[in-house]
């Protein structure tokens, strides 16, 4: 009797877990698997993937989302953050970076809103240089400081000088973007999903 009771209990318990698993992940997974991405969505390049890894490393997801909601769910559309995002937009995303916080704005189409590489580099160096009330962390380790030489020297070496506004960098230094900064910005500039979606079934 106790054995039957105990077995029933454990079977019931396992069933509740697996039912939830099936309903929330298995069935949707099967449905989503059929979705084909738009031909305009390209797989990430090597550089963009490196940048994506830095995005993950620095925990950008804890303040930024990458999912634009439809009308009726907040002001995403009114803020021109991009058309509602769909499963097909995320086919090359591993891991997904949908995010659950908007301490900062949604980034799913940031490249369409802010295509300037300079802007992103300065912003990463110190967000408050461009956005005075921002709470975002600065990322100085993605950059290096060099003593000021002439612009021509840097142009010749191919180093990427970042035009940080006065007061946000040491007076006698010039800020150079490292490869990591460039990779991260390359990733951010790949975030443009404003291509139209074909309404197919």
């Amino acid at each position, binding site marked *: 009797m106790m054995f039957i009771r105990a077995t029933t*209990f454990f079977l019931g318990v396992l069933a509740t877990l697996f039912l939830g698993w099936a309903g929330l992940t298995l069935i949707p997974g099967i449905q989503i698997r059929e979705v084909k991405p738009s031909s305009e969505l390209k797989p990430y390049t090597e550089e963009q993937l490196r940048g994506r890894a830095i995005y993950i490393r620095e925990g950008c997801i804890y303040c930024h989302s990458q999912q634009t909601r439809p009308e009726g769910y*907040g002001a995403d559309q009114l803020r021109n953050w991009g058309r509602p995002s769909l499963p097909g937009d995320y086919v090359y*995303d591993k891991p997904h970076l949908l995010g659950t916080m*908007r301490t*900062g704005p949604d980034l799913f189409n940031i490249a369409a809103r802010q295509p300037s590489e300079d802007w992103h580099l300065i912003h990463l160096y*110190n967000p408050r240089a461009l956005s005075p*009330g921002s709470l975002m962390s*600065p990322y100085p*380790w993605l950059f290096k400081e060099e003593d000021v030489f002439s612009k021509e020297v840097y142009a010749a070496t191919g180093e990427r000088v970042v035009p940080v506004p006065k007061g946000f960098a040491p007076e006698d230094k010039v800020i150079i973007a490292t490869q990591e900064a460039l990779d991260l910005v390359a990733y951010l500039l790949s975030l443009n999903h404003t291509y139209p979606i074909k309404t197919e079934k």
Partner: protein
Amino acid sequence: MSPDGNPFNIDESPELSARVLSDISVSGPVLAFFTSAVVWLLIGTVFGLTASLKFNFPDWLASLPALTFGRVRPAHLNTIMYGWISLASAGCSIWLTVRLCRVEVRWRKLLYPSVFFWNLGVLYGTIAILIGDNRGLEWLEFPRGAALLIALAFVCLSLSILRTFHARQVKHIYVSLWYILASVVWFPILYVIANLPFYSGVTQAAVNWWFAHNAITVWFTPIGLAAAYYFIPKVIGRPIYSYYLSLLGFWSFALFYNWNGIHHLVGGPLPTWLISVSIVASVLMFIPVTTVAINHHLTTVGHFGKLRYSPTLRFVVFGAMCYTAVSFQGSIEALRSFNEISHFTHYTIGHAHLGMYAFASMILFGAIYYTMPRLVRWEWPYPILIKYHFWLVAFGIALYVGSMTVGGILQGLYMNEASRPFIESVEVTKPYLLARSGAGVLILIGHLIFIYLFCLMILRRGPERKAPPWREKMEVVAP
């Protein structure tokens, strides 16, 4: 040495009740779980306060990559979840199991490796996050190696609990034990499935949030409820009001709560039916939560005066009431109309802390205050300090949840007004984020007091208080 390797000398003790023998048999492992939990509590609290201060002073310590918000915040979450709460829950669950089975622990030899691998996993995972090796999934940031260690550790705990259950000397299986048994079977399966490498895209998002919510469903909440169902009646000295209600509560909990996960993605790029299903399940949670609330309340009503005498009762009743509050809040939060305002804001963070702190952690404090004297055979040396602990963290968490709730709603309202620049939704939260740091300071001080008391207990220091009668009957050889 007694037969199963227990270092306590119990040969001269035929009068010791089964209860005391059970306590003695698990004291070593439970103390190991609790001690490591308390260490992670300190570390996790410091990480939490640091993360909060980073929002108040974004350029503070800004040149240290390991302390950037994006690393400290997940370090806080993981050390608290898999460190403090999990390890304290593990200790609590094995202690409750032997008590409720009225038997000495079985497969005790699996418990110390469990403690060891668990701590090793959390340490490895936390260092990984701080140096930048983050898997990029919320609640699943740890590298797979760390996750494997934790899974192994958990399985060791599960096996010991299940084997002990098998050897039980009781005819009835108490409600707390249902939750514990379900837990130890559910969580390893959940954790392994979630960490598999097969997922990508929005399907992975579904798996991610199925996991994250289910960790609450199958591990954190059941142990909290198991503890509340035991300590409230046990401390007061009255049985639970309605055992029938607890049966209904358990099965409706198991059935509905497993479907909640996708409420974290309302409005997101997933099939509408999927999101709706989770919203419905979230609202259905009113049923199990109400049964638990009725049960606990009607057991306590008329006896609230006893909270004056028992720290355990204070912490556990506080926690149980917050369980009701956070669950009702969650059911509302899942509704689309509310979610439109609260999603992506600090409101969610307030909700998370109402659950994981005001419910789960407070109950675990209560559990530790009850069990420690019975494990180390020493009384808490300075009860006044326990009162300071309680009031500091009670005020602290109230301030925390209050500030994040109000700040979050304002943030959401401003974000939804497209005519307002986005930065205004940030500016409006700043005073509330400062209040949150203040709350963090109160909580940290409360924790430091708790840790001090805990150390005194482990070392059996401080003024000796009146000893319990059974200890006077026999000399017990301490480990």
